């Protein structure tokens, strides 16, 4: 019999039925997740779109479906563009990101290179060094709040180091409070960089490193020409993750300073929190939220396209 004849004889239904069964099961399996995603995206999006075009606030006495009675068109969006406090908050957020992420990256990379080969006690040191990122951020906020008290350990250590009494009121000074917040962030998230970069570092083939050494390359040259290029993807991933989380920074910072003194450490999340819970101008908050959503979506799509073009899996 020819192959064609054999194939004609073979019953086609079982295979098709199986594929069908698979597709149906797949649908059922993904349904809960799809529903949850829908739940959290559809209504919130529509609702916010709606009230962002109004001047609604829960204080107005109206239920939110009646927000249209306080219609104000795109006024909120115009206000967003001109909201000085908003832009300052964004600026501060950018500052925190610009300082913390590179520092965390460099420190994490340095630590990772120290952990690249095996040495006694490695496991123990590793477990200790990754602890900070597992501390509840709110608790970390409180820890650093205590540390940076004017009579607290930080000043105590500085006093012994500098040989003279230091009684700086960290959290009462705008610039020092910002510095304290950055220190807290760096303390907590350098281990994350360390963790990820170390995983990438060990992926570099040892043979190639040996070959490079035999060809006369110095440790720095090996790092520059072999290790870093091979770690490019991982570095990008680590930086992306950290940048995104840093943009959202809230817990630790809020407990440490509450955004203060004044607005000295008010980042974007803190600002939105405050006008949501204190000023209760929810129509306006919705506008801000949508602008952020829009910008981030565009950035996300652009990044995905760029990675797809480079031939890398998302």
């Amino acid at each position, binding site marked *: 019999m020819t192959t064609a004849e054999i194939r004609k004889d073979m019953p086609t239904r079982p295979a098709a039925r*199986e594929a069908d*069964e*698979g*597709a149906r*099961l*797949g649908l059922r*399996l*993904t349904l*809960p*997740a799809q529903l*949850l*995603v829908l*739940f*959290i995206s559809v209504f*919130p*999006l529509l*609702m*916010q779109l709606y009230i962002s075009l109004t001047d609604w606030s829960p204080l107005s006495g109206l239920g*939110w479906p009646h927000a249209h009675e306080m219609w104000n068109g795109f006024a909120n969006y115009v206000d967003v563009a001109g909201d000085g406090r908003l832009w300052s908050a964004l600026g501060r957020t950018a500052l925190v990101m610009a300082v913390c992420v590179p520092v965390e990256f460099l420190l994490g990379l340095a630590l990772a290179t*120290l952990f690249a080969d095996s*040495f006694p006690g490695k496991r123990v*040191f590793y477990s200790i060094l*990754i*602890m*900070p*990122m*597992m501390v*509840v*951020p*709110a*608790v970390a906020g*409180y820890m650093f709040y*205590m*540390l940076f008290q004017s009579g607290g*350990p930080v000043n*105590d250590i500085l006093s012994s180091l500098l040989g003279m009494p230091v009684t700086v009121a960290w959290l009462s000074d705008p610039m020092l409070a910002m510095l304290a917040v950055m220190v807290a962030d760096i*303390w907590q998230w350098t281990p994350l960089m360390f*963790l990820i970069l170390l995983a*990438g570092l060990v992926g570099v083939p040892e043979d190639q490193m040996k070959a490079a050494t035999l060809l006369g390359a110095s440790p720095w040259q090996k790092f520059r020409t072999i290790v870093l290029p091979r770690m490019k*993807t*991982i570095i990008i*991933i*680590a930086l992306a993750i950290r940048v*995104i989380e840093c943009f959202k920074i*809230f*817990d630790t910072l*809020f*407990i440490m300073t509450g955004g203060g003194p004044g607005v000295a450490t008010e980042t*974007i999340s803190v600002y*939105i929190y405050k006008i*949501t819970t204190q000023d209760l101008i*929810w129509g306006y*908050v919705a506008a*801000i*939220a949508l602008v*952020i959503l829009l910008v981030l*979506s565009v950035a*996300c799509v652009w990044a*995905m396209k760029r990675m797809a073009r480079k031939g890398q899996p*998302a």
Partner: protein
Amino acid sequence: MRRSPAFEAFRYGAILLACAITLVPILWMVSMAFKPIAEWQATGADLTWFPKEPTLDNFRYIFGESGSNLIVALDRTAAKPILSSLLSASLGTLIAMAAGTSAAYGLSRFGAGGNLPLALIQLRLFPPMAVMIPVMMMWSFLNLMDTWWGLALIYGIVTLPFAFWLMKTFFDDMPREIEEAALVEGCSRGRVFWRITLPMMRAPLASASLFVFILNWSDYLIALLLTTREWVTIPVYMASLSSSMTGQLYGAKAALGLIAAVPPVVLGIMIQRHLVRGLTFGALKQ
């Protein structure tokens, strides 16, 4: 690779310094948790790293006993917040893992739900504050405000991306031969999933669950907005502790902080092998 003694010395020096910096804040809080009131606000020469008179008073205090006449005993102890954190984090983990694992299997084996990877990453991309108002409205409408189960639901949604991505990479890594063998034997696909795949995945499921639990337990902002009085979680409760007599209750808060911080740290060290996979959404494995 052998390194020169100078390098080894440098390495140990650097690592010890890093460990010291890592441990100082934590140890300070541990120390505070065991310090009596008199030592809370010590400054200058009185400032000690270890309590001069260690005491469990702070722990007793947060559970309702006031050991000193300087502060009034709490009427709302830490017991319920601890319970709230535990319940909401647990149920939230269950929700995220149930939905995430099923969807991950559906995508891995059947290619269903192709939109989920991107959608779930975007979920983590946006600042929570940007969606909290509608969430508050919805939760209020559904009578889920200030309840631990309401919290659990939002937790489940917010950590769903991690559950999904983690389990997806685990499923992708698992060879299909075993499942296919069962299929050839006549098992239905559903049974294969329940009776064969899942039992084999016990270890990854456990690790992923612990990872998600740590995330849920560590939340602050969402609980801050969705709970007001009855079911506040530990971080929210902690922030609310204060006394007009002694200002901030440093010792008590430190004790509470310790209780809150220990579980995730211990769990995290237990699952450290999988941390990279979880944190990079499966892009990297350790």
